[in-house]
């Protein structure tokens, strides 16, 4: 009998391990609500000075790396996609179990929420990152009372992800280049041009918030008072704002004033932020990498002045924030490279980047004799034979590789998790990255760039010699 009990226990243990592993693989790892909370738990206890709460307008518009660079503020974006205030409230309660921030900033765009419940997909992004706790239970209950158990367990909701699994699902996020250095920011590297911003200065009347939304707004104020932590309300700037939304925000301002909570409505402060509608917006609702940098820099100054927050730069315990800023700066540089269409400036940016592995392939009639191509390339360190005969040059922080001439060659290398296969023969060149040929031009310069710091492929670009080195992407 004893043997049978041991056997059953071992079997049950194996089954539990198996199910546990399946849960780790299948669980959702979205950056728009789940990862920020999961990585929040990884932060050193009581190390964060400012926590930003709210929806996508928080995690895409406020960049902790910029606050760090500007004023040494240790901040974190703890937000979820389309997060209603009732979820924000439980995020705040949960976060205060682990951190004692000096200021809590709540972005209130979702005060426009008039529904009693939002769609369940949002319950996923706003509760799945939370550890099992009373706060999580309440957050799920207030969001989807009819599906309480599956959403608390999680696995029944996401077990059918088998068709969308990728390599990332088999990795522990702690091992990724981001890991605990990630501070919840989700940059939008796209740009949509607008002629201007909507002028909201004329909208002075206010509109009652939905009862559930107002109730939780007041709970947030009460929580901050109870915890004796200064609270700030803000509204992120966005191009698509309409009058009725501004009226809701005006009501938020009134409630803030009643309770002595500072209220920053950035839809009335476009000029102070120096936002450019042609360059700084990702789309009608969010700022892009440039716009978020401006807003974050403004916030850094404002918070520093209002609350005299400590400058943590140089403190050993805050190395994560420094690392996060470095990663961000590299991502920003990567984006600048993606946006660059001129061959000369592109190569110059590339050559100055110390964290980049890049491949330059000179193919076909690559030199149109009209530009100082050879000088620029030899200046970067490319061997002269390649600049004369054509070929492939790979520059990496770990060392260079050069393949001159048109002779048959095949070379394989790994770029992070990607596979790169280079083939050259009399017919031409193939630059096969993860089964896709990235060769952009048969006559000219082909470049592949890989960001070693963030472990991300940056761009594949060609400059066509026959088109005056026009950019081909």
């Amino acid at each position, binding site marked *: 009998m004893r043997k*049978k009990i041991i056997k059953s226990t071992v079997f049950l243990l194996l089954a539990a391990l*198996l199910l546990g592993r399946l849960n780790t693989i299948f669980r959702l790892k979205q950056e*728009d609500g789940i990862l920020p909370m999961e990585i929040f738990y990884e932060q050193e206890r009581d190390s964060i000075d400012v926590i930003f709460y709210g929806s996508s307008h928080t995690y895409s518009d406020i960049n902790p790396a910029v606050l760090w660079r500007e004023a040494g503020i240790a901040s974190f974006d703890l937000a979820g996609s389309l997060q209603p205030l009732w979820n924000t409230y439980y995020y705040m309660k949960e976060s205060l179990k682990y951190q004692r921030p000096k200021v809590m900033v709540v972005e209130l765009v979702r005060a426009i929420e008039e529904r009693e419940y939002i769609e369940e997909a949002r319950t996923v992004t706003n509760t799945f990152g939370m550890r099992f706790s009373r706060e999580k239970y309440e957050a799920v209950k207030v969001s989807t009372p009819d599906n309480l158990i*599956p959403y608390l367990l999680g696995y029944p909701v996401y*077990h059918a992800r088998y068709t969308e699994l990728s390599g990332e699902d088999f990795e522990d996020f702690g091992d990724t280049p981001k890991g605990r250095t990630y501070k919840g920011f989700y940059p939008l590297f796209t740009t949509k041009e607008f002629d201007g911003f909507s002028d909201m200065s004329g909208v002075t009347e206010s509109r009652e918030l939905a009862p559930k939304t107002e109730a939780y707004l007041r709970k947030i104020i009460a929580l901050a008072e109870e915890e004796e932590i200064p609270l700030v309300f803000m509204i992120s700037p966005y191009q698509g704002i309409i009058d009725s939304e501004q009226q809701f925000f005006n009501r938020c301002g009134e409630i803030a004033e009643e309770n002595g909570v500072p209220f920053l409505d950035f839809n009335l402060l476009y000029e102070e932020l120096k936002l450019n509608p042609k360059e700084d917006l990702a789309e009608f609702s969010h700022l892009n990498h440039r716009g978020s940098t401006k807003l974050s820099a403004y916030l850094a100054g404002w918070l520093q002045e209002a609350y005299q927050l400590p400058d943590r730069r140089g403190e050993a315990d805050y190395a994560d924030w420094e690392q996060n800023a470095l990663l961000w700066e590299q991502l920003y540089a990567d984006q600048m490279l993606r946006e660059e269409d001129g061959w000369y400036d592109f190569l110059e940016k590339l050559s100055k980047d110390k964290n980049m592995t890049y491949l330059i392939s000179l193919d076909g009639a690559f030199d149109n004799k009209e530009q100082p191509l050879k000088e620029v390339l030899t200046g970067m360190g490319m061997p002269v034979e390649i600049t004369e005969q054509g070929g492939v040059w790979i520059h990496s922080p770990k060392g260079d590789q050069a393949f001159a001439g048109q002779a048959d060659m095949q070379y394989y290398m790994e770029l992070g998790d990607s596979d790169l296969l280079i083939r050259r023969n009399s017919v031409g060149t193939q630059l096969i990255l993860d089964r896709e040929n990235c060769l952009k031009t048969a006559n000219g310069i082909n470049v592949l760039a890989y960001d070693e710091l963030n472990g991300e492929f940056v761009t594949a670009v060609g400059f066509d010699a026959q088109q005056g080195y026009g950019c081909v992407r």
Partner: protein
Amino acid sequence: MLFNSLQFGVFFPLVVLLYLLVPRKMRCFWLLIASYFFYMGWNPKYALLILASTVITWLSGLVMGRVPEEKRKLAVAAGFVLNLSILILFKYFDFLLANVNTALRMLHLTVVDKPFDVLLPVGISFYTFQALSYTVDVYRGTVKPERNFFRYALFVSFFPQLVAGPIERSGNLLTQIQKLPEKKLWNYDRVAGGLMLMLWGLFQKMVIADRAAVLVDQVFDNYQMHGWFGLSVGAATFALQIYCDFASYSTIAIGAAQVMDFQLMENFDTPYFAKSVSEFWRRWHISLSSWFRDYLYIPMGGSRCSRKKRYRNLMVTFLVSGLWHGAAWTYVVWGGIHGLYQILGYELKGIRTWINEKLHTKTDCFSYKLGQIMITFLLTDFAWIFFRSNSLTDACRYIRRMFTKLDFWSLFNGELYNLGLDRPEINILLLGLVLLLLVDLVRYVRKERFDSFLKEQNLWFRWGVLLFLVAMTAIFGVYGPGYDAKQFIYFQF
């Protein structure tokens, strides 16, 4: 409370745990409470119906035990009439009314616009038949009337088989309930075997049946959009779906009962390996077909009568069996087709033998038996089209399209992946089908059930199979609130 629900995942272990802990005399009460709780999970009000059915048949049994022989008929008739009245009222009233109204319309008379319009009480056909079989058994003297109401109530409502069978006989289940205080509850091998059966049943239901249902629903609800290929795949998949759906419930029921030291009767025995339609009915829903055999077919005269009467008995039995499955003409026709198959089977037996002799066909070889199995499957699958279709008109149109829209090119143009399940889902379904085939082959060839076969194997194989099934069900089972990747695309905010 469905077997594949989280609620049952909590309910069952709790019931078993307390069943092991309560005093011997309390076991019956505890299981009775648990069974009523289980049933009330659907609709608490319907517990009154099962209670009414229980009281009627219990009293009928008691009366039969006390009255002289000539009055026993009255008691059994009363039990039948009252019980069947409940069944007819709740299950067939609207169907009957619709047919009466059709007749009235044809005669240009005013229709009766008072449908009963209530939700069909779950499992009413199962427990009604189980209770009725008891009254007949008492009447025939094969079992003694049960004097203890609670024991009898547990017999009618025993939760593992309450809502979808197997339809138990008093000679089996009631006898086991009577011996409940003497049962030795804990037996490692028996409990482990029961749990293995439950796991296999969950796999059948959640991975195969519920996945097949997606394709079946797509094809049957849009049959106008499909040709021969899609409609044939739809019909074949429905055969798979209904088998896995129904057999899985019985398997889980048998496993759950086995955990608690109850042996329920087998309900499915590799039906699609049957070599004739009559054999199919000896392997499909055995508890129901044997019920009809014992309480309808044989009392009407069975096969020990003239050929004409025998065919009549067969036809009546199958028509009633069709009606038992559902209150619609599609089920009646389905039953009728099976009756017809059997009659034709008898009628054409001579011709078949003559053809086999003329063609010197070997009948005792694999190919002949395989041919028989395939023909039987095609015949039963043809009948399933009526069972699944939403109306008789739909069924006829479905069949007509299947034989007139001959899109043979669809075999090769990827049409299979446009029938509601994409390529990965079809692959999972095929994998499930292979596993099902293996398990059924073991059953068919070695006459061994899944649990007893596994118990004979080496530990690494047994555990490997079980862990594989756990993982497959956890990943590929159709459950949860319907996560849809499209719902989560970042820019929807």
